[in-house]
């Protein structure tokens, strides 16, 4: 099955096309927040390079975050549009899952994946690798880095750390023993990892209809805006 992968949850934009043989074509652009302008031409480009048309797509995979809100919106909207237009499912991908996936062959007990969330916080989750597959041990959260450091210290296991969160907040993890920092090499979720993980999920039909896809923001608990208390609206 031909899958189109879309990555807009971080500063760069990534697009890749692949099937059971692996990646057929991929492109990454350091977009400087120009996600909306970059994405459509990049999709066109990878399709042309791979010699396929969008009609041949079997599914579209998209990074739903957590990450950059403004980017997420662009990627999710594009994935939904393609899914609607060609009547294909969407494979929603968590950015931290994609990051952790690179370490699925690590010898360490667990993998911590973290992305910088700005304002002194980071998005993070902990995974257990086994047989080249990762199982989430904790759900993605947004917290100050110290909370993550305490969690990892209390776990008292050998941990591989990946992602921009560990680069940005390096000092919070200096005291962490039994850890392997790989964040400098594996800083961002890569489009190739996204596509390969999406391929695994698609083969198990772990996908949803377009309207079910929602960005993962994590920031605030949702609530109705209480306009009633605002007079004069």
């Amino acid at each position, binding site marked *: 099955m031909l899958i189109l992968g879309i990555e807009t949850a971080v500063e760069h934009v990534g697009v890749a096309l692949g099937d059971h043989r692996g990646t057929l074509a991929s492109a990454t652009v350091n977009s400087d927040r120009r996600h909306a302008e970059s994405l459509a031409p990049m999709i066109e480009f990878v399709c042309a390079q791979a010699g396929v048309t969008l009609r041949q797509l079997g599914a579209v995979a998209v990074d739903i975050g957590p990450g950059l809100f403004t980017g997420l*919106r662009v990627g999710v909207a594009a994935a939904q549009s393609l899914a609607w237009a060609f009547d294909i499912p969407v494979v929603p991908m968590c950015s931290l899952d994609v990051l952790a996936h690179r370490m699925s062959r690590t010898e360490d007990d667990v993998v911590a994946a973290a992305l910088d969330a700005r304002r002194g916080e980071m998005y993070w989750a902990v995974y257990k690798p086994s047989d080249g597959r990762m199982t989430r041990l904790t759900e993605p959260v947004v917290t100050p880095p110290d909370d993550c450091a305490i969690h990892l210290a209390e776990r008292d296991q050998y941990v591989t750390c990946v992602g921009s969160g560990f680069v940005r907040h390096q000092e919070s993890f200096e005291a962490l023993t039994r850890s392997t920092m790989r964040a400098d090499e594996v800083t961002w979720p890569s489009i190739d990892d996204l596509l390969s993980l999406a391929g695994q999920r698609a083969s198990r039909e772990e996908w949803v209809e377009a309207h079910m896809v929602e960005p993962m923001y994590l920031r605030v608990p949702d609530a109705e*805006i209480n306009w009633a208390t605002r007079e004069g609206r």
Partner: protein
Amino acid sequence: MINARTTNVHQTEELAGAIASLARPRDIVVLSGEMGAGKTAFMRGFAAGIGVSPDETVSSPTFTLVHTYDTGKIVVHHADLYRLGRLSDVEDLGLRELADLGDVVVVEWGDVASDVLGDHLVVSLEADDDDEDTRQVTVSVAGHTWDSRWEQLKRALAKWGD
């Protein structure tokens, strides 16, 4: 808190321009006030004060949710939450992120979602019962991003002192 009074819409624009001249990248300004209180006029003055070209039409983003103006030096987003029903809708706009990344954001009706917005300046405009052109303007802050500019702001707004 700073109290000021403007007696016509041009003064409101001028006052907004005075605030804009002290604005910095990453600022969020929340505008509160009833329909017709002068929020769009404030935005017009603010945009002009921060360097948006006079050729740009500043209008209310009530139906478009966010209007963006790029002066070449700084990007200003003008948002209106009036039509939104849930905090997740506000979050969808990613206003705080836009500010985090170095832009300036002005949010009409932002007071209903101040928790989502983080540190910000609050400008509230209130019509005067006795004079339909007069506006009572109150400026206050949430957080500390204006601490070092507060005295300057006071001086800048002194001519409309109440």
